[in-house]
């Protein structure tokens, strides 16, 4: 029982971590919170659903489709909701928050018009396959989710630390202006960041569909809010904070549901951020608070 819950928690946590990574990448480079990330993620889930359940295509195609659609959405988001604010001198730092809230409301309700508000069954071909190791039953879906998440996290870490583009992105995150002076094409870097973050959201969307077996137009909001909670908990802009925070939240939610009350499950994330903000406002892995950095 305990081990099974542990595996459930890690599976859930790794999905949370992928969602949170999308937020943290954008925040790291742009210093803004992309409130539309949750809805982009939701569209990824729906594209995956259409490809797998409706068209009957294999899972890798679903991932590919979700990545293409969400990457395109990221591109549009950056072009129309973020870039115009960046070029405007003296724009308030709340402006981008509000404009991305606008995009999130727009996308959620467009999804409502297209897909309705009910639950859609997300059928994975191997949903029922499980194997037993000693007393523990593990589902193949969980293994696949874990492998994909691990692959993404390791891949992202390597890309950020080892490649030229990753270095440019980290330079941009450190200081956009200086990076620009040193020859980094910052506009391209920003676009790339938003697109990569959105594509990761798309992948996470398909993973959520696989893990929960159903999706609806509200998952963007609920998962998005949790992703936000995780990056605050783990430290804004910190890649490892997002991963650790995601795992911690996934585990604590699973165990609270298993051994406590399920009603407060969705509140855990917010209680956690309120507590962490009181004790260590910069988050678990955060650097100095925003005020001091300026």
């Amino acid at each position: 029982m305990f081990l099974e819950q542990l595996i459930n928690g890690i599976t859930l946590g790794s999905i949370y971590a992928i969602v949170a990574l999308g937020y943290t990448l954008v925040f790291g480079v742009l210093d803004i919170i992309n409130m539309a990330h949750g809805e982009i993620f939701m569209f990824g889930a729906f594209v995956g659903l259409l490809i797998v359940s409706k068209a009957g295509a294999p899972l890798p195609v679903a991932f590919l489709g979700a990545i293409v659609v969400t990457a395109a959405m990221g591109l549009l988001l950056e072009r129309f909701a973020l870039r115009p604010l960046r070029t405007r001198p003296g724009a308030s730092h709340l402006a981008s928050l509000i404009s991305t809230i606008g995009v999130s409301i727009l996308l959620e309700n467009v999804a409502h018009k297209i897909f309705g508000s009910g639950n859609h069954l997300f059928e994975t071909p191997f949903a029922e396959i499980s194997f037993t190791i000693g007393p523990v039953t593990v589902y193949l879906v969980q293994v696949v989710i874990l492998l994909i998440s691990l692959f993404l996290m390791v891949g992202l870490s390597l890309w950020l630390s080892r490649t030229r583009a990753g270095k440019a992105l980290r330079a941009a995150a450190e200081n956009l202006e200086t990076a620009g002076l040193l020859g980094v094409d910052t506009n391209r870097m920003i676009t790339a960041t938003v697109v990569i973050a959105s594509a990761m959201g798309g992948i996470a969307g398909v993973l959520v569909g696989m893990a929960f077996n159903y999706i609806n137009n509200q998952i963007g909001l609920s998962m998005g809010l949790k992703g936000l909670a995780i990056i605050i908990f783990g430290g804004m802009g910190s890649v490892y904070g997002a991963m650790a925070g995601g795992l911690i939240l996934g585990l604590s939610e699973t165990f609270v549901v298993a051994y406590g009350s399920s009603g407060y499950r969705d509140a855990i994330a917010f209680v956690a951020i309120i507590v962490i903000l009181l004790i260590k406002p910069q988050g678990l892995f955060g650097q100095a608070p925003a005020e001091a950095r300026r």
Partner: protein
Amino acid sequence: MEWLNPYHLQVASFVLINAILGVSIYVTLSTGQLSLGNAGFMSVGAYTAALLSTQHQVPIPVGILAGSLLAGAAGILVGIPSLRLSGVYLAIATLGFGEVIRAVLINWESLTGGAVGVPAIPQMGRVTLVWARDRGFSPESLGLQSNQFISLTVFLILLLGTILTVAFFLRLSRSRVGRAYAAIRLDESAASAAGIPITYYKVLAFSQGALLSGFAGALFAHSTSFVSPGDFTYHRAVEILVFAVFGGSLHIYGPVFGAAFLTVVPEALRAVSDYRYILYGILLVLMMVFRPQGVIDPALLRRFRRSGKGTPA
């Protein structure tokens, strides 16, 4: 008296409640703090008033007062730790507060009725009608039917509440407190250097916003006679934000105008109503790109005043 139908009056009543909500986010914003927790504070006020009147037979005005004060107290409780946060951190933390409150409302079934909500809350208009009837007054003597009288009473009470609110904060903006808010909004460090106690004023603004949200919530409970956690979701928080962003957050008339416009237009144009939130979304992006200060800003008001030749605006 045909035009005075309950439907029109109800829309007008929602305009007024939304206007108070718009002012509530404006007050907090006027110190540069963005709070997305106003839907949560609104629910504190609404549930307090609703539960006091349904379970303890407390008179409505007392319930509204208690609801507002409790929401204001919650604002202080949330506001003090939130001082360590600024900008987006504060927005997310307050959003989190709203979600926690909603989780409590759904789960504390013995007190709040859970997801079903609180039904049969005494309605201000109906209570007034009974009270007037007991004293030998009949609305027919004014040429009004009972339901017209009820809606009209609600509207008038809300109008009074809104006018008092706007008048208070209009005065406040020209007082020492209002100047301090403006100074903090423009530059916190400079304001602090000039000897303005930042902590005090930021918490004050925050709890004033919370109190107003609670006030609006309590009025809402006694106008609709039914509240449920579904009334105070993230969408409500965003809606309140849209009022201030669209209308303008630099002058108190901004959110009032925003609330009025965005409540009436979807009602008047049924076709628009279906796409209400889609339009809200587009509106938020467009406003941020083209007119981040909102439709109404001090410059526009000055132009009005000049062309109006002395008409007070």
